[in-house]
């Protein structure tokens, strides 16, 4: 290839790319759109196929998404955001969302949506132990919160930093309630997590889905759906355990950002997310559809029985939201420690 041809070819590629970018005007920006979480990768790819609209991936956790929206209040960059329940509730309380009732709204159970449309649930999940059984080094699969404290699990447990992700905030809040604490008294939960700290290898502030699959993290306390996906989609040696003492459900919610730059496109996208088509696609990532009847039967056959799920209790989003700053602060001080 002569230098001239090479130059011409490069220019051609460059202009083609630029043309593609220019033609690609249909975009919806969603904060917290992690491809490996709740099958957002599959859902956004499907939307691109059916509507021709691009929803790019976004690595922010719920809390970071909330922080970004608050910072950009005066010139919003995002159209919509996805959060674990309490953080989305908080975003709505802070006036970052514009009321919108997407099509299919009335099919969402009343407890899982704001009456004014400032937030609504797109799917639900439960906190579970996601266990890479092969990486346990011969230790048995833990069955209860109490089991996790045993010395055989030293260095084998991780849960996300609750100041980073809403899933983990749900976990920390829920554990506190489970052990007798409340939105005013964090001691029971923090006492438990302090004991658990002896077995924890890290408190990640990034997606560790692949680390769990590889076995770097044998026990990840996170959303059940992520574990099911590891097992059934990525064929990992993974077991999902709902702890014996009980666990917590977590609605995953969305809202329309106030002043969204692509508002009309965003509304169409949010409508579509409640269709059976989109809901079934979420279910492929093993997050339970919020629209009744949208669960594909083969997915239903892969998850734990309803009887097991009776141990999962719902948490009060309003109280959780109100306690969020204080609990996150207390967790940072007492569990992450002094920083030394």
């Amino acid at each position: 290839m002569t230098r001239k041809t090479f130059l011409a070819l490069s220019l051609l590629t460059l202009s083609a790319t630029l043309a593609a970018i220019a033609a690609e005007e249909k975009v919806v920006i969603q904060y917290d759109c992690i491809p490996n979480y709740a099958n957002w990768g599959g859902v956004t790819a499907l939307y691109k196929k059916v509507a021709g609209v691009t929803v790019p991936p976004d690595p922010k956790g719920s809390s970071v998404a909330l922080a970004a929206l608050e910072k950009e209040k005066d010139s919003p960059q995002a159209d919509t955001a996805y959060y674990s329940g309490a953080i989305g509730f908080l975003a709505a309380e802070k006036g970052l969302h514009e009321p919108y009732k997407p099509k299919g709204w009335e099919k969402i159970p009343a407890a899982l949506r704001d009456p004014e449309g400032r937030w609504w649930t797109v799917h639900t999940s439960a906190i579970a132990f996601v266990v890479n059984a092969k990486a346990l080094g011969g230790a048995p699969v833990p069955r209860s919160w109490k089991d996790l404290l045993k010395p055989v699990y030293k260095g084998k447990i991780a849960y996300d930093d609750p100041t980073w992700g809403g899933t983990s905030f749900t976990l920390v809040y829920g554990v506190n309630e489970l052990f007798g604490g409340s939105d005013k008294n964090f001691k029971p939960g923090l006492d438990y997590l302090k004991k658990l700290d002896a077995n924890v290898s890290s408190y990640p502030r990034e997606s560790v889905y692949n680390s769990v699959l590889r076995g770097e993290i044998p026990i990840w306390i996170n959303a059940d759906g992520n574990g099911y996906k590891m097992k059934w989609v990525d064929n990992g040696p993974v077991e999902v355990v709902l702890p014996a003492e009980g666990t917590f459900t977590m609605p995953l919610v969305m809202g329309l950002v106030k002043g969204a730059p692509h508002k009309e496109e965003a509304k169409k996208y949010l409508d579509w997310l409640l269709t059976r088509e989109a809901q079934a696609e979420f279910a492929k990532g093993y997050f339970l559809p919020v629209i009744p009847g949208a669960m594909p039967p083969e997915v239903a056959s892969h998850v734990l029985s309803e009887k097991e799920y009776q141990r999962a209790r719902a948490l009060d989003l309003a109280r959780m939201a109100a306690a969020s700053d204080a609990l996150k602060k207390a967790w940072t001080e007492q569990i992450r420690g002094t920083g030394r």
Partner: protein
Amino acid sequence: MTDRRPPTGSSLTGALLSLPLVLFLAAAVAWPLASLAGHALSDPGWRAVRQVLAAGRYRTALVNSLGLSAAAALGSVLLAVAPAWVLARERFPGRNALRTAISLPLTFSGVLVGFLMVVLLGRIGAIPEALAYLTGRRMFEGAAYTVAGLFLAYLYFELPRAVMTLESAFRRFPRELDSAARALGAGPLQRLLKVGLPLAAPALRSTLAVTFSASMGSFGVALILSRRFTVAPLEIYTEMTGFLNDEVAGALALMLALSTLAVDRLLSVGKR
């Protein structure tokens, strides 16, 4: 005596040519720094700054950052002297390939360096797995998440910077001085102490400054590896994203910048 032409008339051209950089710096450095200082000092009575400097997590983070960055700077400069000297003064086949290999980590982002460390020294890292295979005992499991792991990762990404900076300084050393000292009967040790080190001192100091500053600002490595031991950039991130606390984040950033500048300043004392 060579003839040196006075730089008449060139100063205006120089100023004009520097204008884009000056404008860029004003927009990308001065403005954000001013806004940062604004955030940090906006609380009455400099509350955020006093909070950061009071005993506790924030101050620990600053002290940790200073200690870790100083250790990484010293370590990388010590390790870099010999390879930099060889690259600068010796000719051998594969020299360019070696230089490329050494400078490769410069292109890695901090997060990537963190993951590399996990792959090497994580709970199922290559090193513990290999040692377990060879000795039958599990060793260094999860070392990546300790302070030692963090230090190794910092060393890893500072080394190429140190080698590159030192090499270009060593290239400029006049060989004649060394030859002259030898001709006058100085032994190797004497030549190193009386000729080599005085010549190298400024280069060593500026290399220390460069690596130290880069470590102070590094974020990605600690984001991936830090479990308990914290550094200032990590605390800034948590304050901003986890707690929306602009004031403390700003004060921390300001202190980080000031302490970095102070150390750099100290290192350049006596340098012309």
